């Protein structure tokens, strides 16, 4: 495993996640996109990518990489970057959920609206962590170029 390979895995997972989450959010808020995903099973793609991406990273850590690579890729400064980004994600999600709650039509509340709100929250969280995954991967890309 190298910084560039990890960049490729994380960037692919993150950018695909951002694309699908943005699409879903726009659909849920009723924006006319002018086009729709014809095959709805394709919505599984981000999840499948994350599943295989994290599986590959785990396998490479335990079986495919030497200690020197693992020491560089998973050191304490990387852990701090990850921790800071995850914290930012929770903060952004908290603000987003508050805003989504505030934007609901509570005067004519229904199960349909409740269902829609749950999808909105899920899509927003998905978008946030997708964007942060891309951000994290950019750090790996920079390191691969300067390291």
């Amino acid at each position: 495993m190298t910084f560039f390979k990890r960049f490729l895995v994380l960037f692919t997972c993150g950018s695909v996640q951002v694309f699908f989450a943005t699409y879903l959010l726009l659909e849920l808020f009723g924006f006319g996109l002018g086009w729709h995903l014809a095959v709805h099973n394709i919505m599984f793609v981000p999840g499948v990518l994350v599943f295989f991406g994290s599986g590959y990273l785990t396998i490479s850590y335990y079986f495919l990489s030497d200690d020197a690579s693992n020491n560089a890729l998973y050191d304490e400064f990387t852990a701090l970057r990850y921790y800071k980004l995850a914290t930012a994600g929770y903060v952004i999600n908290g603000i987003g959920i508050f805003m989504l709650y505030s934007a609901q039509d509570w005067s004519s509340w229904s199960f349909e609206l409740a269902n829609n709100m749950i999808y909105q929250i899920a899509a927003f969280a998905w978008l946030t962590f997708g964007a942060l995954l891309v951000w994290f991967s950019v750090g790996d890309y920079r390191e691969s170029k300067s390291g």
Partner: protein
Amino acid sequence: MGKSHEKLLNNLEEFRKAANLTQQELSESAEVSRKSINAIENGIYVPSTVLALKIARTLSCNVEELFKLPEENNI
């Protein structure tokens, strides 16, 4: 003292250059990424005790020579 974190002054860059090591070589010896060494030298990151000891061992000096608390400078 080089560029330092507000809570920790460091001499790492001077000691590394005196030992004729690149950031990459020091990072391999201290078992971290080059980015960590760069972040410590630029005062972005405060290393753990274990990492500080590994760096000091590589550079054949004491941790106290590499890192100082800011108030020590005013004494």
